[in-house]
């Protein structure tokens, strides 16, 4: 899932200084699951903003709304009338959600209430860790299901660096060495010989280095209304 955390209240208050009536909008998917932008967090943030404004003798009305998926316009359209009644929208969605709302409401100020942090998983209740950087060219089949792009601080592809110590990364003792994990897992799977094969330099053009990425699935696209089917037309 996409993991995010709430920005400091003061930073959000600073963003909203020009506005009097704001709609705080949560998202029902990733950020609900990571307890950053679900209905409860919208309630807490909206109440905190209302209270802070009142304590500081400011006028700020903050109402609450939820969208099942902020990143899809189909879910934003039913809220069109609601959006119209506010000076600004405060999105508790990930960066994708904020941008989707901003694109959907070209005349309206849309602000992020969260810092979108990474794609990851909960490792225990209340703890999330990064697991994927979306490099666009997955190598998990080679590394036994442990991602060296994400979990090795140096993104090494051919074994650990000299900084690994007792299974931990030199960057932070709390970080397990990705290559130690790869080695142990591949060993359990009996695939050490395959791991010994040298990996060529990775082609990063599928990652961020090639600019913003786009996937097109022709089989899923909607045909244009005036599609000419020629002789196959019935």
């Amino acid at each position, binding site marked *: 899932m996409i993991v995010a955390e709430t920005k*400091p*209240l*003061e930073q959000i208050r600073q963003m909203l200084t020009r506005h009097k009536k704001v709609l705080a909008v949560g998202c029902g998917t990733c950020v609900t699951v990571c307890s950053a932008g679900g209905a*409860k967090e919208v*309630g*807490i943030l909206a*109440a*905190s903003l*209302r*209270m802070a404004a009142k304590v500081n003798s400011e006028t700020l009305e903050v109402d609450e709304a939820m969208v099942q998926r902020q990143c899809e316009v189909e879910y934003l359209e039913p809220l069109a009338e609601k959006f119209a009644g506010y000076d600004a929208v405060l999105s508790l969605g990930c960066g994708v959600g904020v941008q989707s709302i901003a694109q959907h409401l070209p005349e309206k100020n849309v602000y992020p209430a969260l810092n979108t942090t990474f794609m990851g998983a909960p490792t225990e209740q209340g703890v999330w860790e990064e697991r994927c950087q979306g490099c666009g060219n997955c190598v998990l089949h080679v590394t036994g299901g442990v991602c060296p792009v994400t979990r090795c601080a140096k993104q090494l592809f051919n074994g650990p660096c000299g900084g690994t110590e007792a299974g931990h990364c030199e960057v932070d003792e709390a970080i397990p060495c990705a290559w130690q994990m790869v080695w142990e897992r591949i060993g359990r799977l009996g695939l050490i010989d395959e791991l010994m094969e040298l990996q060529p330099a990775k082609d990063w053009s599928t990652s961020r280095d090639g600019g913003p990425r786009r996937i097109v699935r022709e089989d899923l696209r909607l045909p244009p209304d005036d599609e000419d089917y020629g002789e196959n037309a019935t």
Partner: protein
Amino acid sequence: MSSFEPRIIAFCCQHCAYAAADLAGGARLSYPDSLHIVQLPCTGRVDVLHLLKSFEDGADGVLVAGCLPGRCHYLKGNTHARQRVDYLRQLLDQIGLAADRARMINISAAMGARFAELATEFTQRIRELGPNRLAAPLQSPATESPETAS
């Protein structure tokens, strides 16, 4: 300010604090009538949003009273409640209300006298902090509550 009688919402676990409050009453021990008790099956039911809304609706203080550490009938409800109260206290500071307006206490059903003592102590602290500005009409700088005075 000396005549100020705070409104305090006390979220009390039915297995301990609620029974302790009952015991205090039965034993004719007095504690401030500023306490408005909300009975809960366990303080683990308490959510940050409940506590925050109490302040937004004008409560001067919020007390969460759960079982003694390690004695929760649902294992860890009181521990979760304490974590939430700690989080709420940070939020209150960011909002500009004093963190001391929220407090978690742990007592057993047999501690009626201690309940009365802690309730009195907390009420006194809230009296010192003054009224919640969210409920009271906005005051002039000369009379504002200590938490907003610079």
